[in-house]
């Protein structure tokens, strides 16, 4: 049984924290068993075995080498030597799985151990590692690259002396473009890396896009991504060899460049313009609108036509490229290609979603003016063309499309809902009306998104004009519509969305809410308390918390290690407010949630009650729970609730009784219990023992021995 083997390894791991464990492990032959477990059919067990080996090696070296490193591996402790010899033998093995195991052990070692002895280890094992690159095909390429990068990240080694940079450079030039990509990205992420190597690695990542530009650009044109042509023939071969190779290489390259641009190690100068040009070209190759100048371009056109994977990757990268500064004509090209993708009937739902995301980022970042977040004139022109497309997408027969169109719309309104030009463009379209109609969509995800959009439209005063015959009560009607969804919708997503909107409305002081906040909160809590969806109940607690914070002030910080700043004493809650809480009934809802079978709900309720307790400490005298008959009956009800009879209401309660209960509950203890993750039971020794017993049960062995 894998869990028993896994448990055995974990047990040894715990054991190995003790210095004298080393002798036990060495003498008992456990190390040989661990070697064997490296090839276990369960990946979890195999991985844990490798990690344990590293742990033992580190332990042995820690014990053996006191202070200065032992420069001769021959003088290392026997246990360490045994492990190193095993790794070395495995590196010489012809079987790829064994090589992979050895490489994994080394990768973990260099990742975890930063003592000087790791330098000696690398000195000994780098020749067999280098030999692996001589083999054809190179075995376990991915593990090899992981090892090189792990070594390169180590702070202990003197890279120049140990020839690591040369090895990396040689590897980058020897691997195929697809294999070299991840290594190039890893190299660029290194903090201390020679500039020459960085340039080479960046070149590997740029090469496929340079090929695309070269194949599709007429005349020499502006300077491309790469001036040299070294290695380009390999890349061209990879791009043209087959559709899957071409798609794989492009997707990988685009993803790597996207990741790289987000990092602090992003190469500088960043070739924003050619990269943007190449990405736009790739999208055009996918939609068939490029007129390629070369035969290679023609073949790429055929290969990439309608390729959804490449389109998605290119749109992701295009979105990231919005962060850089680009010339206006290129920005207009980006808008054009985005518009075409959004408009095209051929675009698949996933491509459309990515296109919406990229569009949003370009709208946010195009021609940023330093002091305002207004849309640029170009962006406004773009929006003028976008809204008719959005209208069509809101009517799509494909629910995924309706959903992503609504999400996109919600983001648009959140960002620019206050801007006059945007409001005008939106109002002149049918978009708000269509979005409102989607509250009745048959698909629950779409209804949920439509709730978000309608909430956002309403917050910004952009709701569908009440002149429309279908919506005579457009404004007040929306609140009631959302209440209706909250209490009747059969699916959880729309109800959760309604609560998110309500919470936001309450936080932002939406006109419909502040008209009668008490009624609003009471109605929502009443609906939520009966809800079967735990997320809805948790959102209900969130709304209750916002309500309380508005009335009672922010919660005080509970960090035991910080010196509390002199807090502005929060206003003492008015007794009438406590009455309101009882009437709502917020207390009842929170107490009920405290016993919720879903842990996050109980946790949230616990936090809420702690907050309430903190805020009400000064409200009443040193009354103890049980002092008043009322609180005694509440206690009794709570006790019954704990026993699973949750149907009985708490009844009309006095604030004093509530406060008394609040003080009597061990909320901190409960919080600690709830904070433990749900798998703590599974990881306990008792659980392991049960597994062992189960195994024994299967084998029909003597059960008594196990005890």
């Amino acid at each position, binding site marked *: 049984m894998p869990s028993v083997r896994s448990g055995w390894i974990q047990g040894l791991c715990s054991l190995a924290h003790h210095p004298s464990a080393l002798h036990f492990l060495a003498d008992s032959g456990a190390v040989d068993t661990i070697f064997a477990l490296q090839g276990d059919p369960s990946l979890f067990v195999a991985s844990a075995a490798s990690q344990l080996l590293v742990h033992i090696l580190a332990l042995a070296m820690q014990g053996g080498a006191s202070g200065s490193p032992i420069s001769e591996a021959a003088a290392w402790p026997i246990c360490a030597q045994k492990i190193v010899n095993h790794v070395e033998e495995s590196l010489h093995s012809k079987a790829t799985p064994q090589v992979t195991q050895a490489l994994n052990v080394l990768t973990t070692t260099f990742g975890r151990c930063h003592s000087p002895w790791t330098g000696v280890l690398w000195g000994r094992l780098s020749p067999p590692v280098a030999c692996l690159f001589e083999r054809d095909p190179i075995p376990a390429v991915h593990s090899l690259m992981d090892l090189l990068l792990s070594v390169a990240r180590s702070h202990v080694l003197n890279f120049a002396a140990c020839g690591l940079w040369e090895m990396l450079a040689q590897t980058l030039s020897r691997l195929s473009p697809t294999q070299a990509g991840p290594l190039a990205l890893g190299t660029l992420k290194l903090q201390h890396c020679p500039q020459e190597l960085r340039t080479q690695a960046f070149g590997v990542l740029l090469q496929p896009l340079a090929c695309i530009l070269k194949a599709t650009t007429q005349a020499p044109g502006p300077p491309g991504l790469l001036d040299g042509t070294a290695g380009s023939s390999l890349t061209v071969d990879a791009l043209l060899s087959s559709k899957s190779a071409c798609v794989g290489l492009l997707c990988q390259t685009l993803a790597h460049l996207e990741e790289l641009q987000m990092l602090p190690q992003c190469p500088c100068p960043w070739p924003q313009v050619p990269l943007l040009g190449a990405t736009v070209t790739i999208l055009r190759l996918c939609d*068939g609108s*490029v*007129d*390629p100048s070369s035969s290679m*371009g*023609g*073949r790429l*056109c*055929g290969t990439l*036509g*309608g390729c959804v994977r490449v389109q998605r990757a290119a749109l992701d990268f295009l979105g990231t490229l919005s962060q850089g500064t680009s010339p206006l004509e290129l920005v207009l090209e980006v808008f054009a290609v985005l518009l075409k993708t959004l408009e*095209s*009937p*051929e*675009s698949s739902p996933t491509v459309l979603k990515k296109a919406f995301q990229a569009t949003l980022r370009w709208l946010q970042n195009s021609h940023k003016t330093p002091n305002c977040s207004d849309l640029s004139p170009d962006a406004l022109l773009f929006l003028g063309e976008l809204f008719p497309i959005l*209208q*069509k*997408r*809101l*009517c*799509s*027969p*494909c*629910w995924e*499309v309706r959903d992503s169109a609504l999400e996109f719309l919600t983001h648009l309104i959140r960002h620019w809902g206050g801007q006059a030009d945007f409001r005008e463009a939106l109002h002149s379209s*049918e978009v708000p*009306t*269509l979005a409102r*109609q989607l509250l*009745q*969509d*048959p*698909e629950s995800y779409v209804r949920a998104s439509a709730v978000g959009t309608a909430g956002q439209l309403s917050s910004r005063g952009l709701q569908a004009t009440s002149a429309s015959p279908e919506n005579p009560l457009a404004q007040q009607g929306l609140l009631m519509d959302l209440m209706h969804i909250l209490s009747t919708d059969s699916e959880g997503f729309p109800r959760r969305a309604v609560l998110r909107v309500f919470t936001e409305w309450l936080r932002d002081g939406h006109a419909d809410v502040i008209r009668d906040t008490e009624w609003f909160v009471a109605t929502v809590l009443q609906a939520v308390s009966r809800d079967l969806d735990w997320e809805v109940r948790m959102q209900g607690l969130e709304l209750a918390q916002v309500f309380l914070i508005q009335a009672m002030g922010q919660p005080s910080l509970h960090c035991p290690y910080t010196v509390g700043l002199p807090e502005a004493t929060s206003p003492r809650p008015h007794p009438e407010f406590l009455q309101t809480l009882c009437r709502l009934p917020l207390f009842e809802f929170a107490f009920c949630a405290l016993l919720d079978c879903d842990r996050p709900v109980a946790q949230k309720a616990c936090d809420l009650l702690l907050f309430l307790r903190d805020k009400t400490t000064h409200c009443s005298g040193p009354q103890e729970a049980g002092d008043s008959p009322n609180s005694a009956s509440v206690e009794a009800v709570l006790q019954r609730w704990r026993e699973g009879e949750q149907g009985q209401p708490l009844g009309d309660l006095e604030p004093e009784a509530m406060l008394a209960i609040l003080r009597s509950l061990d909320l901190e203890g409960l919080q600690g219990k709830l904070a433990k993750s749900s798998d703590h039971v599974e990881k306990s020794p008792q659980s392991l023992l049960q597994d062992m017993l189960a195994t024994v049960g299967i084998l029909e062995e003597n059960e008594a021995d196990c005890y």
Partner: protein
Amino acid sequence: MMALPYITEHTGFTGTVYATEPTMQIGRLLMEELVNFIERVPKAQSASLWKNKDIQRLLPSPLKDAVEVSTWRRCYTMQEVNSALSKIQLVGYSQKIELFGAVQVTPLSSGYALGSSNWIIQSHYEKVSYVSGSSLLTTHPQPMDQASLKNSDVLVLTGLTQIPTANPDGMVGEFCSNLALTVRNGGNVLVPCYPSGVIYDLLECLYQYIDSAGLSNIPFYFISPVANSSLEFSQIFAEWLCHNKQSKVYLPEPPFPHAELIQTNKLKHYPSIHGDFSNDFRQPCVVFTGHPSLRFGDVVHFMELWGKSSLNTVIFTEPDFSYLEALAPYQPLAMKCIYCPIDTRLNFIQVSKLLKEVQPLHVVCPEQYTQPPPAQSHRMDLMIDCQPPAMSYRRAEVLALPFKRRYEKIEIMPELADSLVPMEIKPGISLATVSAVLHTKDNKHVLQPPPRPTQPPSSKKRKRVSEDVPDCKVLKPLLSGSIPVEQFVQTLEKHGFSDIKVEDTAKGHIVLLQEAETLIQIEEDSTHIICDNDETLRVRLRDLVLRFLQKF
């Protein structure tokens, strides 16, 4: 199909037309609709002077660019349609039809429309597949039969999609989105279409979509002289439908959901805009009607009724006509125009997969398929790419297909076969000589036993019979083997010939009997005895030669 009357009624056609039943019935409906549309608006006179080339070139475009106007014909009449259809012999999928014994013809499902077929034309040793409008998509008809196309010597490929860049799924989505958008904004939607084909799939999509799009209260009208027949016919052709729809019939349920749309009054159909329709007409609505060219039929009225409002939309789904040309006479037009051509026929990617699957020795196709479309010359993916390259043909070109007929199958009558005595001449190879009469009729060849030697005519009747049978001489056996010269010479000497001389020649030997002034020329495949008027000697020598040869 729509041109059938022109072929059968105006060209002296006397043959048989083979078609599946749905093809005939739906073809009849389409022609009936066309004739009805045309005859509704009879012309008092028809102009033909403009067809004069000198006048035509002065006319505005596109009239001046029209080609071969002199060959344009009037539309046929219903009488001609019926006459043409009477020449059809109905066939079923996989049915083998003998054509004069020369070839066998078999229709296969092409997956494009109800009853649409690809054809296999095969002899005993050659197979030609004719692939016309076919579809691999899962729509209403029986799926395309690809397996039967395998092992073709030649595959003739026609009827590919007219819009290779438009994916039918995307277009259906576009159709639904635009329809819903228009109707939600209070506008009407006009769909110019044929009364059969894609409309069944569109109605099915709408059936699934209207409730979810909140369009349940919007009426859908289908207006065509044959609307009722088309909707009903489609429901009874169960054996021609895809598996899903076939299985519904056994439930029993109507295979197409448009029956339910009709029952629930969501879809209403009328023969024309006159009569009941004008009473029921309610806006906003969706109207399906013909003709998709917008030149005749009820669609003309709707174009004129709704063309002035930008709330309305016309959605083109039939790929046969340029929508811009169709709209030209209605311009300026305020109504929105959406072009979503839905053509489910094979595209180039599907063709490439099909060819890999069925692996014909040669592909023959129209010239247009062997190069990218002129408007997208860089799209190398929009052409047929196969090995060996496809043979192309142009309009009216006669093409010699790349195979030679080398073998013919001949049947042997059982009694003749009984009489054969094969001799094994090599291990595994036996030979027998056959003497028979080759009887050829309807391109079938039969070997019959030879007639008995002719009896002397005893009566007139007998004589007549013997005249029918070809003269049959006494059969001489066939010879085989070779003559070893030395042994032959020894044999000659044994039989009293002397003064024998042997000369080697390029092809064999010459044996000279100088005394007898006779020459025996022995070659690989012939032996000649040349002697002067001495028949006895010749016969003696012949018998000696025959000793060395085997007889059959």
